[in-house]
């Protein structure tokens, strides 16, 4: 079958790889109908996540049709149209039972790498380096889905592919940021990063009762999209002082909940950005946390900051004084998709959660390297390139 392979930093190619087969009884094979780029992939492509092997198949946000099931699969059958959570989770360990699915104990067959980085390993992700398991990704014609009964969800008939696709990763990630960030009735919520993840966090915040939601980015077309589809307020960080603007808009209090959806490759301006870029290049820090610092600084006293953007290692000049003295709650997570996907599909079926606007560019799998190039540089208003193998 054809698949998009990582060949090295900024080097992708579409190649022939072996078809997947059932290796465990609880596996299913899914024929991919749609699979999309995610900001997380950029961290792999740009070489900031160690533990990539030349030839690894990328992709983790996808939807398709079940074409084969192992003897241990009960809930799915051949022909089901399913969206698959980007995290592989067993459904029966203590973490899965406590709805902390991305922390699954039993899905990562290479735990030593992540344990060396973070003290303990997390669960596995499709196509996301050997630290996260080393599984083949979804930018391919077929994918093997382990623990299929827990990770693949039947899509309701009225929900189209372009909408349901984002229930795999972007939508549950954003929802989790607002939910575990503690968004409640009447809150003011600020979201850094207006990609699909940030926009989903903003939409979730609205649905969870926030009174005002402010999204922050520099790409006009992304901010316009958030305004049009979610009714969020917007802020171009290159045109203004974000902290001052947020204080002014919140009567001097600051946002109640700040959600960071930018990650380790934050863009920035000024000396802070030069400093982070130099240190990241020398690997003296593994991420550029400019948006995270700003979120912590801007957050109201006693407020909450949720980190959705991916970081792999350590960062510099972390504002620990602000965290401690302002009594903040700072939390982060890889997405616990299985906890939210059924509810998100229901909301999609009711027409209350909009996602298909993210699919700005559709193309065949052979065009995937070009799709990633557009997505990386945000050319032509690209929010997500969606591949149809």
């Amino acid at each position, binding site marked *: 079958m054809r698949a998009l392979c990582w060949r090295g930093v900024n080097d992708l190619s579409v190649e022939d790889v072996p078809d997947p087969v059932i290796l465990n*009884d609880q596996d299913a094979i899914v024929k991919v109908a749609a699979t999309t780029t995610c900001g997380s992939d950029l961290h792999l492509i740009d070489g900031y996540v160690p*533990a990539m092997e030349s030839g690894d198949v990328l992709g983790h946000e996808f939807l398709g049709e079940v074409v084969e099931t192992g003897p241990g699969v009960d809930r799915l059958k051949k022909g089901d149209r399913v969206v698959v959570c980007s995290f592989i989770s067993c459904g*029966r360990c203590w973490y899965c039972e406590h709805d902390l699915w991305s922390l699954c104990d*039993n899905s990562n067959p*290479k*735990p030593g790498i992540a344990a060396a980085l973070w003290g303990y390993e997390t669960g596995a992700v499709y196509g996301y380096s050997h630290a996260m398991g080393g599984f083949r990704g979804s930018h391919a014609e077929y994918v093997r889905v382990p623990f299929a009964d827990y990770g693949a969800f039947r899509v309701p008939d009225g929900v189209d592919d372009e909408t349901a696709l984002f229930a795999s990763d972007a939508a549950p990630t954003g929802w989790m940021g607002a939910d575990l960030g503690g968004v409640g009735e009447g809150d003011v919520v600020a979201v850094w990063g207006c990609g699909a993840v940030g926009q989903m966090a903003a939409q979730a915040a609205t649905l969870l009762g926030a009174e005002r939601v402010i999204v922050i980015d520099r790409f006009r077309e992304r901010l316009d999209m958030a305004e049009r589809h979610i009714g969020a307020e917007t802020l171009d960080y290159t045109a203004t002082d974000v902290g001052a603007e947020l204080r002014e808009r919140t009567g001097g209090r600051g946002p109640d909940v700040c959600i960071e959806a930018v990650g380790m490759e934050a863009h920035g301006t000024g000396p802070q950005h030069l400093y982070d870029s130099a240190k990241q290049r020398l690997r003296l820090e593994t991420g550029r946390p400019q948006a995270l610092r700003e979120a912590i600084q801007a957050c109201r006293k006693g407020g909450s900051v949720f980190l959705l953007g991916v970081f792999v290692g350590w960062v510099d000049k972390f504002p620990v004084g602000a965290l401690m003295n302002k009594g903040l709650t700072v939390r982060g997570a890889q997405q616990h998709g299985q906890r939210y996907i059924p509810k998100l599909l229901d909301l999609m079926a009711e027409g209350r959660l909009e996602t298909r606007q993210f699919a700005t560019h559709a193309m065949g799998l052979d065009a995937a390297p070009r799709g990633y190039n557009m997505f990386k540089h945000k050319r032509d208003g690209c929010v997500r390139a969606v591949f149809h193998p």
Partner: protein
Amino acid sequence: MRRLIKSLAISAGIAVGRRLWRRYRRKRGAKSTGPSTDDRDRWLAVSINAPPEQVEAEPRLREVLARPGLRLQMRITPAPGGRGTELAVRLKEQPLPYDVNLLSRLAGRDPRQPVRRALRDAKSLLETGEVIELEPREGPRTLGGRIVEAAGARAAGEGRL
């Protein structure tokens, strides 16, 4: 009936085990909470999301822990707060210092690596009924790829256990 007797016997066994364990801990007193001075003596442990009775009665547990080359001491204790069961093992013969240095670990010769792998496999089998497999890798390798591959191959036996 026979099954009932068996399960009663197991429960009784566990109750006795628990009491002995508590007594042992009391006896060791402060000493037992002190740090282990030699890593080679450490118990390696996983917590299994199942009650001790079930863990104790599981035949696949013995199978995994009796893999060729593994000679282990085993300890099964309830985890606090409904967190299931703590399964701890340690090699009956203390490995030589030379066997557990960084080079041996990188070469995959540290005798604790198969122990960690067995513990994880036992846990996964008990919790999910299987041990997740990876697709085999094919095609030519780059140097970087070989390093990551080697790290990945050791990774199953490394980590904080």
